[in-house]
């Protein structure tokens, strides 16, 4: 799967409270989550983001609460992929489980600036920065997780297993 999008860049420890504040968790409606995505760290995100755009974060992206509403909000907002130096573990597994592509690459993160255009090959873990022309290699997923991703998320994976 190949993706192309514009970068929204944030720092370290972007927590799930700023990705989707708790005051909006009284509903899991996709439109509600997308409308308030990143609101407490970037007020204009929901307005400015367009389909396919890419979130780039620093260390420990998605830390804090287990709310799956956080990766869901990002996905529903139209974001195609999140690239970070590292992910908090619950956010990491939630993203795999719901089929939000994520990649870990400290080098790609350091080089990326807000507004850069990136081309990402999810299967190969390749990230190309169109401004600099540089290509970066992300950590590949272990085979077990690749299987979940290929099946389209954990639910589809489990369905296959139960049959």
């Amino acid at each position: 799967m190949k993706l192309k999008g514009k970068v929204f860049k944030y720092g370290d420890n972007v927590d799930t409270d700023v990705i989707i504040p708790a005051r909006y968790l009284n509903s899991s409606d996709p439109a509600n989550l997308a409308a308030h995505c990143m609101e407490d760290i970037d007020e204009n995100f929901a307005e400015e983001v367009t389909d396919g755009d890419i979130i780039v974060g620093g260390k420990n992206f998605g830390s804090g609460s287990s709310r799956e509403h956080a990766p869901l909000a990002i996905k529903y907002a139209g974001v195609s992929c999140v690239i970070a130096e590292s992910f908090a573990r619950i956010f990491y597994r939630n993203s795999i489980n719901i089929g939000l592509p994520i990649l870990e690459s400290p080098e790609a993160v350091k080089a990326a600036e807000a507004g850069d255009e990136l081309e990402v090959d999810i299967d190969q873990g390749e990230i190309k920065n169109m401004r600099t022309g540089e290509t970066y290699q992300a950590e590949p997923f272990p085979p077990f997780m690749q299987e979940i991703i290929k099946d389209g998320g954990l639910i589809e994976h489990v369905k296959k297993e139960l049959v």
Partner: protein
Amino acid sequence: MGMTMIEKILAAHSDRDELKPGEIVNARVDMVLGNDITTPVAVKEFEKIGVDKVFDKDRIAIVPDHFTPNKDIKAAEQVNMIRKFAKKYEITNFFEVGQMGIEHVLLPEKGLTLPGEIIIGADSHTCTYGALGALGTGVGSTDMAAAMATGKAWFKVPPTIKIIYKGELKPHVSGKDLILYTIGKIGVDGALYKAMEFTGEAIENLSMDGRMTMSNMAIEAGGKAGLIAADEKTEAYLKDKAQRDYTVLNADPDAEYEKVIEIDVSQITPQIAFPSLPENTKGLDEIEEKIEIQQAVIGSCTNGRLEDLRVAAEILKGHTVNENVRCLVFPGTQKIYKQAMNEGLFDIFIDAGVAVSTPTCGPCLGGHMGILAEGEKAISTTNRNFVGRMGSTKSEVYLASPAVAAASAIKGYIAGPEEVK
């Protein structure tokens, strides 16, 4: 080769004799947990799987504790949805308001989280059960849905950091101070993709309530789990509670750790985590400025247990809350509420001008029952001080122990118990 606690517990639940960090296993789980925010998403996902029953109706717990008693219509609809789900699938452990408590205080009290077990919860503070020698770990709603159908979850075996707490605690220093100090030392991603084992004489001497406070905040260092070996205190705690037989699975003496950290607890003073990360800790003695507060919150899955309320009451006794402060107490469960009331703690609180609430997660996550306005500061015994956590993005949360929160409520600024005479 010996195994760490988490290796041993995961091996026992995946029919393996041995496990090493990095391996991925599909393990049986003993308990699956969700709350009123995460369960609605899990129910939708569960229905997509297309099974007509849950894997075990006695091994699922649904606790509407976050936005309850229902804070608004949408919250009420969410609880209604999970209530119907619980009825339809005959879930034994659905806890209605009136029976309900804050999930991580309630489940151990009900004897539903036992040594050697795996408990996954669609709530990040599921790591609390590490204090009972169980692998408790937070997952998302989809994991919860899959586990409700299959009774299993996938885990990558993490390396373990062993932390040895030596020496004796100073007066008014608690489990909360130890865990805040630890997070300050290793950072909010210091245990990312890793488990921690809390060991040493200071842990052995800690009460079960204090141990649960420590394990509860393992996630605040990014940890998958914060495990404490089950001992005679654990057994005594579980004596009339345990709802199932269990096997203690403590670490082998020759287990391999990624890192061993030693901490001399006799040097630790009450700790405060400054906004907006739990790692921004300072000892109370290192704070020079006067930090005025407008709210003091005592409670939550971190510090809403009986011992916490007793400590707060002892400090508040005979005092009144500062005129510029709202002090809120949230007992963790109905049982704790009743015990605290019978012990006369509520008389102390109410005479001091404290508002006592029914159990709820409410203010901890800026849900309801104590939201902060722009420019306000709170001292709180909860677990997170992120931007906007308790209300306005321009409000601030300082994390501390019940002793410090109670003393600060009296003084009107962040203060230690010694300053209240």
